């Protein structure tokens, strides 16, 4: 049974990084302070989030309510299973990315700004995860947009500024749609709470419901990069690699996906959506995004761009899985938040490490790197295989449950989509592995040397996690159990293994 318990941790977890950002603004000219603050905040937040895990798994929901912002709309946090899952993934990856960023960004300009906003971003991400209602979520969703902007245009070049402008144009317009949807939702229900499996009254006229659905889903779909709202993501790759890694593989894009899940499971509810049928259309759009983005990824030679298009494709797995409205598919939707994040961040880290070590940024330049950076490329191989859906790796779990969920929903066509996507993934990841291991290195001056330990450590940790998520998914302390309890809540099921 769900018991609600007042606790400070739901608000402390985001606050830690916000305080860290403040500290960096005040003390950040000294490198030592910057590093100490960033690391300390990352570890403290990690500990705070993980300390809530056992209670969350046993059905306790921590809540924090700071009073009403607007009539009927409190500023409140509530740690349910879905939010906990997202927070767990982001706070774990923040620790690794912080370590990586400290090494990667050494010697760059405006580091105070960089690390300050970096901390703010993660602060807002955890707040999004724990938000009790859409207004609280939206506040941090918009803050996340603004905090990412200085990171996207960090280099200050014309290209970066253009990318930043495009990023803001897309995400802020999405935010406006979202806000309109929220106003409509509040007008209809008098609440924006996310604490129930379905807020909307099923008796509402279908035309109104359709508008509500389009506004809310459309608003979140921008950050989730569902086509045709995806164009900001590839151009935002001008950002430094740690930003692309944490924000454009985890925090920002997953905030969009997480919002979509909230709309589907907590605002509309699976039962209402099943009778309305809007999700069938969204599923088609998501399937198209999966295929088309994969085809685009195939054409990219720049590694980061290939990763960006792959992200677009992978994010739509979550959307597609959520739209199938079966418990098994929902499980795929939730765990893919973690599965994609760990694998994609491994690849971003690898791309950054290769660039730091050798200056190479293109797939066609990777010949022979397997001999030069064996550990790095080993991690890269694991992540690539995971995306292809090789069993015993994280990506397989998603594909398995998504396919099972599609069959349960009576839509085998999406199993075919999964197969096709796996095939396409193979066609754009395998060349990297092939070049790295089976082609000789054209540059004899490159000696065998791994990147420094602060870069390599996070890479290996992430790759290890990809394996762990693949083989140990059902182990009790893993986030998988959280995903299960999130799905059970959304579908009104009792705790039972699917």
């Amino acid at each position, binding site marked *: 049974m769900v018991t609600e318990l007042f606790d400070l941790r739901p608000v402390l977890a985001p606050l830690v990084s916000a305080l860290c950002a403040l500290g960096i603004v005040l003390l950040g000219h000294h490198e030592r302070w910057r590093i100490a603050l960033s690391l300390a905040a990352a570890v403290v937040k990690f500990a705070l989030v993980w300390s809530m895990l056992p209670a969350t798994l046993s059905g306790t929901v921590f809540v924090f309510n700071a009073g009403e912002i607007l009539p009927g709309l409190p500023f409140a946090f509530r740690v349910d299973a879905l939010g906990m899952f997202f927070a767990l993934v982001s706070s774990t990856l923040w620790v690794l990315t912080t370590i990586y960023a400290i090494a990667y960004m050494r010697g760059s300009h405006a580091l105070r700004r960089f690390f300050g906003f970096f901390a703010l971003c993660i602060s807002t991400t955890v707040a999004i995860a724990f938000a009790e209602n859409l207004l609280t979520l939206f506040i941090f969703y918009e803050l996340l947009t603004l905090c990412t902007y200085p990171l996207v245009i960090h280099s200050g070049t014309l290209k970066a500024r253009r990318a930043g402008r495009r990023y*803001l144009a897309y995400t802020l317009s999405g935010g406006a749609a979202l806000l*309109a949807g929220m*106003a409509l939702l*509040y007008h209809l229900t008098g609440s924006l709470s996310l604490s129930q499996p379905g807020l909307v009254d099923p008796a509402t006229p279908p035309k109104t419901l359709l508008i509500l659905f389009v506004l809310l889903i459309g608003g979140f779909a921008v950050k989730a990069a569902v086509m045709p709202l995806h164009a900001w993501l590839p151009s935002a790759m001008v950002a430094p690699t740690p930003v692309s890694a944490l924000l454009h593989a985890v925090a920002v894009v997953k905030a969009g996906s997480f919002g979509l899940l909230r709309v589907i499971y907590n605002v509309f509810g699976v039962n209402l959506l099943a009778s309305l049928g809007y999700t069938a259309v969204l599923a088609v759009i998501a399937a198209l995004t999966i295929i088309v983005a994969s085809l685009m990824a195939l054409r990219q030679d720049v590694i980061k761009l290939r990763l960006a298009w792959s992200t677009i494709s992978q994010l739509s797995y979550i959307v597609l899985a959520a739209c199938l409205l079966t418990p098994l598919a929902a499980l795929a939707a939730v765990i893919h938040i973690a599965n994609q994040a760990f694998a994609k961040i491994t690849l971003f880290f690898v791309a950054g490490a290769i660039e730091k070590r050798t200056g190479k940024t293109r797939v066609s330049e990777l010949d022979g790197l397997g001999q030069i950076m064996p550990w790095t490329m080993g991690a890269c191989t694991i992540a690539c295989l995971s995306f292809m859906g090789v069993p015993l790796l994280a990506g397989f779990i998603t594909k398995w449950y998504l396919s099972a969920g599609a069959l349960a929903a009576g839509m085998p066509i999406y199993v075919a989509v999964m197969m096709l996507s796996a095939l396409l993934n193979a066609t754009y990841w395998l060349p990297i592995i092939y070049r790295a291991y089976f082609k000789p290195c054209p540059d004899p001056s490159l000696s065998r040397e791994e990147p420094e330990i602060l870069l390599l450590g996070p890479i290996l940790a992430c790759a290890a996690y990809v394996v762990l998520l693949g083989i140990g998914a059902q182990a009790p302390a893993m986030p998988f159990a959280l995903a299960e309890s999130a799905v059970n809540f959304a579908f009104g099921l009792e705790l039972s293994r699917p």
Partner: protein
Amino acid sequence: MSAAVHLLPLSVVLPITAGVLAPALFHRRHNACSWWAITAAALTLATTLTLVSEALDGGLVRYPVGGWPAPYGIELVFDGLGILMGSAAGLLTLLILIASRAFVQTEATPQRHSLFHGLVLINLGGMNGFLAASDLFNLFVFMEVFSISAYALVALARGPVAALAALKYLIVGAVSSMLVLLAIALLHAQTGSLNMSDIGDRLAAAQAPAAAGLALGCLVVGFLVKAAVFPLHFWLPDAHASAPSPVSALLSGLVVKMGIVGLIRTRMLFAEADIFSLVALDLLLVWLGVAAIVIGAVLAMIQRELKLMLAYSTVTNMGYIALGLGLATPAAVGGALAHMGFHALIKTGLFLSAGALVLSTGLSRIDDLRGLAQRMPVSSAALTLALLAVAGLPPTAGFVGKWQIALGALEAGQPWLIAVVMSGALLTLAWAIRIINSLYFLPPARGQVLTADEAPLSIRAPILMLGLVAMVGGLAGAMVLEWIEPLSFRILEAGHGH
């Protein structure tokens, strides 16, 4: 009659007396004059705040002048508008006077320092009187007090533009005052009374719809000019942009809001008279509001001068207020009233912080201010926070009004207006981000920027305070809406109570 009631006339008499004495006592003694004005404003604020607490406890505070009861005698009334705008006027005038210590030395000739302080105090007294007036004659007198002091304040700036702008402002203002006076004469001729609620009662019996209609038209046009509601805003940009920055803050933050106060009083008077439907007036306000929001934001976007952008943004925001009043639903009117107070705060912060940048560099075009955040971090941060607030991102102070007005559009069955509310916010963000980009992310283009010094503490403290309050003011939305609920109730219920 409790003792606190006597504070009501004091809140009018004190600043006006202090203002009249200032030039006589402190000619050419800038420092002493500044402290005199600050003390007077602080005492006025204390007076107003005592009245606010009185009014929040026990409803309206009434003061029959000379002990003669209304409608035979003159009565001053401190109601919701006093709570909202009286406290805003007291607080913001105080902050403006503190910041003016540095501004006035550069922006006005030494002979005019004492004049400046005197006029600001007289302006404050005029506004307080206008808010408390319950009869048309005093309404007119106090309107002239704050209007004429405002014309003179604009003319205090150096340079030919200011003189011309002040002349334009004077002519337009005089015409609008004449219209109001004409309406008062018409109403007095029909009813033999000047007390507003008394006129409301008697007008129905007077059986002269033509004269009443003419009076309504004159009052509406007159106050729309004072409120700078599109298309009667044409005098505003020059006057507000060319005035000394503290005066711009005063005019854009507070003085234009008095036009809205006049409109509200007019609407209540005619709703009580109940001789004709006010639907046409509401419709007019809605459409003018829509036009003002969009056109004001577009015009702000194409400006190159920082202060002109801010001046056009006032046009947009007066549009929001007009739209909210015109929608005439509880949420929308509450939102419009809340936005009056919040926008006063934001716009004061904007003009003072923008003024700080202009003061230190002597540059006013945003392209010339590039890279200034390096040299003036506090002023730039304050401006940035206020810019985010004026765009209405949550949880800023600007969000409350927009949210409530969007809800009001739904209540009124006009959901398309949400699109207008949102597009106004997005357009505002577009130019706000241009300013932020220029300050933070572009390399300096002018030598003055490289040598600029941060503003003195007397400017930094008020603008940082205003910036922070603007940024998180929305969190107090529920509280402010609760304070003004009786007022919005009275605005909507006037005429229905009989």
